[in-house]
């Protein structure tokens, strides 16, 4: 080994703790890049592979009843490559050992051939045989939740008749990667299932001989989706077509898209923080190291080493630290990636997961991190290397301080000399102080950004489950029935109050933009659903006109008083113009509200309802469930309590996992910054501190000088961290905003306090580790050396 390389090894051994602290910060950078970009790619590639192999549809449409003979017309639309016509109907399920009814969707599979679109992946068993009315294949999530295996059976109410169905296989479908039930906010694998039956059987059960009510098609590359949906709408219009939609509006696909967007946002925000902090730390440590080795640098140059050789020597030190960080980062990134992938497994069901160990990603992650480190080192190396050897061998000029806090001035009389020492030292290197503060504050920022989700979700839960939805349960009916149906509901066991509603799917058009929007009509004296305006005050549905969510208003550039074109998708695509009379606050979906009367007027079918919110006596629940399972017109019943519980469970689990990760990351940053900054100070001020010990200052008093500085930095970092955290949280809220859901921008003071608490504790621990070094000072040795 060359002599200079030996020096490198000794140097590294000497500063191992600091080097490790930096390496850990770098590792976080590498790990978060691998985690976010890796997961993004993994999810994205898995999705496209599944979509492609199982021919996920590009366009979807449904109708009330359309003849199968339309197939050719549809297939001949330009750009269409394959069409599958099918039956798709909501059903109520009666599962053994489950008191409450589950909801499901029955989907037909072609007889005697493979599906051309939305083919299912068979995990276990087989698909139902053609013409077998008792055979079903169920979605794997539902089967797993109930521990069903082929051979088990359950009952379903299909078109008003109860039937016993035997499971012959479990399957996965590109259409239900994210399988969420109607009206649910998170997937509930137990209460929502999809099952596949032979097309001829389902047609017979629903009286749909020679007809279909749903279709999905794939397209050629570069097909004009707009033209296809337009063409489809035209074809299906006479048959009760409710508007064709492309993938973007397909629920499972949209949720996956959302997740991908979030991962992308994470990749944009988190790794740069670590890259910045590691660059800064490298700069800080290396500047000090080189300053201490000034004479050696001079000597090396004096005996003939070139500037480049000396510069390369120090660069290698940084690269060595980077290498350690890289190894830790790659391992941690892989491990976290697998963890996240497993977490995905709970929400997204794929038959396989592509988690590719892509070399380019590792190169990217480590390259970017190394680059940041070398950039951090560049200035320190350059400034020393360019000194002429004679100058370099001289000790640096003594440090000049400014006489701030002159104690002869009365107002500074109460500040102790030790505080003055700390403060002047901090102000002597304002940039370093600022960067150290900024580095520490980024830990606070990370925590605020992670933990605020709890506040947001709490607020959202309160808003949705306690202020808006105040029913015990909501039921949906198989179709719109005369309002009198509410009296039959009132007659069910334990039902104390019934508030009917009417829901219909529409398309809003204003200016250039259009959106698929459900409109819900509720009665004017509604108590079980409370609409909240943007100031969160309850408002009554207007006698005429629409209340639209603020998000939708922004998207369509709608203001109260504007007229919006509403295409009634379930009513022959009739277009009506309706005034917007107010904005409502809403975090889920784009549902707009009207009064039941005015919606019914708009639909021209008389006074009808297709669902109701009900209040029930909890003690009669089992009877109610029993009754509902026997009531053919009810397609689903959703208990608010159950939804809330499931929502909490899912979200908590999700956020807790992410928060734990962020806390670890924040602690690493804090440790990296505070520990290194303390070590640097200790190195710069060893003589000062030793002198104080000689004069008879106790260890505690001496440490206080150092701790005061760290304390000031840590305290200054808090408000800065809160401010940045506030901004980041806002960016997160904006980044998450989608048609599916928004999260409210709410940060409680506890969140700020908790973030600070974690960082302060981490800072104190880091400082105490350094404090131990003060206790072990060799006073004599320190004092005898020249600065």
């Amino acid at each position, binding site marked *: 080994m060359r002599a200079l390389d030996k020096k490198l090894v000794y140097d590294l051994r000497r500063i191992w703790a600091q080097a490790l602290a930096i390496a850990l910060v770098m590792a976080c950078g590498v790990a978060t890049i691998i985690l976010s970009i890796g997961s993004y790619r993994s999810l994205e590639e898995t999705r496209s592979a599944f979509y492609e192999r199982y021919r996920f549809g590009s366009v979807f449409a449904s109708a009330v009843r359309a003849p199968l003979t339309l197939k050719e017309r549809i297939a001949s639309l330009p750009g269409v490559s394959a069409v599958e016509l099918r039956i798709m109907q909501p059903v109520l399920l009666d599962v053994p050992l489950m008191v409450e009814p589950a909801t499901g969707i029955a989907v037909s599979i072609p007889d005697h051939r493979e599906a051309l679109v939305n083919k299912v992946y068979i995990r276990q068993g087989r698909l139902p045989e053609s013409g077998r009315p008792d055979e079903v294949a169920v979605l794997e999530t539902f089967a797993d939740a109930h521990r069903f295996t082929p051979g088990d059976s359950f009952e379903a109410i299909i078109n008003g008749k109860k039937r016993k169905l035997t499971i012959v296989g479990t399957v996965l479908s590109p259409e239900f990667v994210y399988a969420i039930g109607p009206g649910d906010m998170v997937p509930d694998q137990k209460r929502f299932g999809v099952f596949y039956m032979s097309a001829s059987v389902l047609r017979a059960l629903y009286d749909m001989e020679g007809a279909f009510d749903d279709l999905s098609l794939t397209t050629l590359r570069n097909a004009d989706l707009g033209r296809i949906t337009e063409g489809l709408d035209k074809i299906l219009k006479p048959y009760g077509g409710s508007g064709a939609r492309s993938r973007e509006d397909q629920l499972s696909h949209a949720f996956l898209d959302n997740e991908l967007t979030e991962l992308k946002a994470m990749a944009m925000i988190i790794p740069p923080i670590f890259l910045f902090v590691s660059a800064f730390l490298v700069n800080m440590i290396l500047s000090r190291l080189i300053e201490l080795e000034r004479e050696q640098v001079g000597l090396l140059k004096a005996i003939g080493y070139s500037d480049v050789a000396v510069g390369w020597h120090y660069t290698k030190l940084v690269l060595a630290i980077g290498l350690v960080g890289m190894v830790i980062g790659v391992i941690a990134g892989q491990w976290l990636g697998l963890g996240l992938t497993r977490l995905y497994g709970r929400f997204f069901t794929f038959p396989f997961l592509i988690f590719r160990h892509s070399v380019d990603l590792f190169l990217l992650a480590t390259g970017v991190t190394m680059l940041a480190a070398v950039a951090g080192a560049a200035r320190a190396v350059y400034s020393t290397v360019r000194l002429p050897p004679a100058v370099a061998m001289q000790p640096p*000029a*003594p*440090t*000049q*301080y400014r*006489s701030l806090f*002159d*104690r*002869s001035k009365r107002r500074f009389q109460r500040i*102790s*000399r*030790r505080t*003055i*020492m700390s403060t*002047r*030292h901090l102000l*002597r290197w304002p940039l370093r102080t600022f960067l150290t503060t900024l580095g520490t504050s980024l830990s606070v920022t990370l925590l605020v950004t992670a933990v605020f989700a709890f506040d947001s979700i709490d607020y959202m839960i309160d808003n949705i489950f306690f202020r808006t939805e105040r029913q015990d349960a909501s039921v949906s009916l198989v179709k719109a029935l005369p309002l009198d149906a509410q009296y039959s509901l009132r007659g069910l066991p334990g039902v104390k109050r019934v508030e009917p509603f009417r829901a219909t799917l529409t398309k809003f058009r204003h200016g250039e933009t259009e959106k698929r929007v459900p409109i819900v009509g509720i009665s004017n004296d509604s108590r079980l659903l409370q609409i909240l305006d943007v100031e969160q005050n309850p408002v009554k549905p207007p006698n005429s006109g629409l209340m639209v969510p603020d998000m939708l208003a922004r998207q369509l550039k709608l203001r109260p008083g504007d007229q919006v074109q509403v295409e009634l998708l379930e009513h022959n695509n009739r277009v009506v113009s309706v005034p917007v009379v107010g904005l409502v606050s809403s975090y889920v979906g784009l549902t707009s509200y009207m009064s039941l009367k005015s919606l019914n007027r708009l639909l021209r079918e008389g006074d009808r309802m297709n669902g109701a919110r009900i209040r029930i006596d909890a003690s009669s629940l089992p009877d109610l469930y029993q009754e509902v399972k026997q009531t053919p017109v009810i397609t689903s019943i959703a208990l608010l309590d159950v939804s809330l519980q499931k929502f909490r469970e899912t979200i908590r689990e999700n956020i807790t996992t992410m928060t734990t990760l962020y806390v670890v990351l924040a602690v690493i940053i804090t440790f990296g910054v505070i520990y290194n900054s303390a070590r640097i100070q200790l190195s710069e001020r060893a*003589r*000062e501190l*030793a*002198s*104080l*010990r*000689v*004069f*008879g*200052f*106790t*260890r505690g*008093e001496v440490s206080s000088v150092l701790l005061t500085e760290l304390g000031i930095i840590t305290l200054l970092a808090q408000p800065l961290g809160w401010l940045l955290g506030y901004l980041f949280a806002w960016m997160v809220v904006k980044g998450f905003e989608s048609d599916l859901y928004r999260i409210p921008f709410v940060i409680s003071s506890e969140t700020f306090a908790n973030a600070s608490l974690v960082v302060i504790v981490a800072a104190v621990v880091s400082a105490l580790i350094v404090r131990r070094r003060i206790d072990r000072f060799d*006073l*004599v040795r320190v*004092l*005898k*050396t*020249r*600065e």
Partner: protein
Amino acid sequence: MQKPIFEINGLTKIYGSGEVEVRALNGVDMTLYEGEMAVLLGPSGSGKSTLLNIVGGLDQATSGKVLFDGRPLTALNERELTRYRREHVGFVFQFYNLIPSLTARENVALVTEISRAPMSPDEALAMVNLSDRATHFPAQLSGGEQQRIAIARAIAKRPEVLLCDEPTGALDSKTGILVLEALSTINRELGTTAAIITHNVGIREIANRVFYFKDGKIEDMQVNDHPISPSKVSW
């Protein structure tokens, strides 16, 4: 002569062990009296600094005894030694060891703040003739001035003893003499016992007694009945 302030018996200090064992002090017996000025002479590694460090409470002896004002110093623990340094000893080092972020006055005040009956920082600065430099930072002062500030800082708490390890070692003759004059004034006016380590043989003439060190022992001791003023020292 007067009352003894340090009584040192059989003081031994061994660094390392086995083959690398170094006997820095090898059974030193010595007594220093109140108000006297002692000069310690000897080649590097002869044990002068080690003695001063043990007497000053910066280091522990391997064996032997040091009594300070009749109390055994060698029995004190870390905390008690800190207290001893704080209350009784003033140090002056070759490289001044001033706090760069504090002005001259603040450097002195740093010590007076934790002392029981200190003089004011300005009074201490006046004793070393540097009142006009009170608001300067170390970086703005010459080496001699810095050393005199260090002396002012050392005496401001009115210590019983002043231990100086090569106080003029980094200075030229002119500024060295100013520093010695400051030390001498303090010794005379405050009655502070002073022990000065030096390589400069000329300085012995300002002392009451001179100790010659060699190989960890006192080889010789001279009493100087007529110490001269520092200004007359031939450098």
